[in-house]
């Protein structure tokens, strides 16, 4: 049974990895067809991943309701929100889900008047916390922290129209910071991260990295 549970997945990962890595260097039409088919399959498989996310979310909140943990009542709103959205989506303005998606339905209404404002507002709350953190915790305790704060202040002022009104050289200095030292550091990080990603990919292909199998090995 170990053969099916452990060995076959490692063989699949190895074959797929080696095949796609070498495919890049083979310009033959058959190689291009293989790439097209395999990526097509990958898109379809990835499409099923939404149900994994959905199950995890619903399972978590269902357990909260079942065990009546403090605040379990709020979890009912998750099911309410999801349920009503799915029902509207499947109803599809009367055409039902086997027909093409209709425009201007209650499903779209839920999106524009519930998901969009709530989603947009959720992250905008961080603006307040950033300002609070700027006042209470951002301290120039070390020389490195001082360099960081000076760069931040110059960029914050130089990147808005008022910066030019405060000092005419603020915008060009901010641009220079972005194009030279920032760019250099980000390039270094990018190269480092890419080397790491390539190393991890090789480890996956050769079966050294097995975390994606999900444990219970």
């Amino acid at each position, binding site marked *: 049974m170990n053969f099916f549970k452990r060995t076959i997945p490692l063989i699949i990962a190895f074959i797929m990895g080696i095949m796609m890595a070498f495919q890049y260097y083979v310009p033959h039409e058959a190689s*291009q067809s293989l*790439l*097209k088919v395999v*990526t*097509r399959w*990958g*898109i379809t498989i*990835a*499409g099923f*991943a*939404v149900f994994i996310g959905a199950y995890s979310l619903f399972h978590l909140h269902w357990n909260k309701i079942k065990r009546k943990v403090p605040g379990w009542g709020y979890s009912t709103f998750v099911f309410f929100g999801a349920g009503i959205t799915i029902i509207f989506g499947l109803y599809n303005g009367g055409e039902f889900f086997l*027909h*093409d*998606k209709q*425009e201007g339905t209650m499903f*779209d209404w839920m*999106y*524009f008047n519930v*998901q*969009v*404002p*709530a*989603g*947009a507002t*959720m*992250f*905008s709350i961080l*603006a*307040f916390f*950033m*300002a*609070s953190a*700027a*006042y*209470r915790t*951002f*301290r*120039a305790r070390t020389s490195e922290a001082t360099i960081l*704060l000076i760069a*931040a*202040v110059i960029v*914050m*002022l130089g*990147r*808005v*129209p*008022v*910066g*030019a*009104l405060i000092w005419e050289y603020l915008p060009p200095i901010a*641009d220079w910071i*972005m*194009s030279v030292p*920032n*760019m250099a550091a*980000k*390039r270094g990080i*990018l190269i480092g991260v890419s080397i790491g990603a390539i190393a991890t990919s090789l480890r996956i292909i050769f079966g050294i990295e097995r975390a994606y199998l999900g444990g219970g090995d």
Partner: protein
Amino acid sequence: MERLLRIDRRIIFAFVAAAVTIPLLIKFDLPVPATKEVRGIYDKIDSLPEGSHVLIAFDYDPASKEELQPMAVALLHHCFKNNIKVVGMTLNPGGTGLADSAITEVGKEYGREYKEDYVFLGYKTGVELVMINMGENIYSAFPKDFSGNATADLPVLKGVQSLQDFDFVVDLASGSSIEAWIAFGKEKYNFDLGAGCTAVIGPDMYPFLQSKQIDGLMSGLKGAAEYETLIERKSSAVAGMSPQSVVHVLVVLFVIFGNFLYFMTGRKK
């Protein structure tokens, strides 16, 4: 002084709210000159002849809508004004409604027809897999558009077989899709690529600008405001620049004042 350091954070929140709201109510205009990064995208689109095909990837969700939707709308205005055919798609499921509404509303303003002048292909998952599939054959990646029409029959896609046939591709991103478009799209299939992104990831894009892997970059609401200025259609992004300026000054003052108090109380001890 110590009490000032430990001030209730809700007072700071009130200052921020006021710094954003008052400039919007008073309404004072500030000049928004375009930077060369934003000009890169503008000049590219302006140089395209009528009937060219531009692909816009609306890879963002409602959380980034306030920065990227103005960018998308400005870009669409520019394309439709110049009679350019627009093909939209998204890799983010939360972005479908925003993308569809932006393309449809701006297209209608210019009297453009769906399927003839523009199309929204919809959403596909898999990021780099979608890009590679589109690079091989766009109809394989998107057999149907968002409304369920067969893409092979669409007049707007005439002459387009894959990503290589697009005259310009712009990715509006809130995540890491720009890097993916570069690695699995532009470098592999050799098309011109521009990027619009949230300001959070803006600094990370500069290496790609310098290596000319992207032709231009719109970063955050300021990037959108610059583009609105270039197309001479000032809207919500330009209007947002006055509160943006005020609140930045406020945050800088918070940083300076907070450090001042910190060092003064430290010296007292």
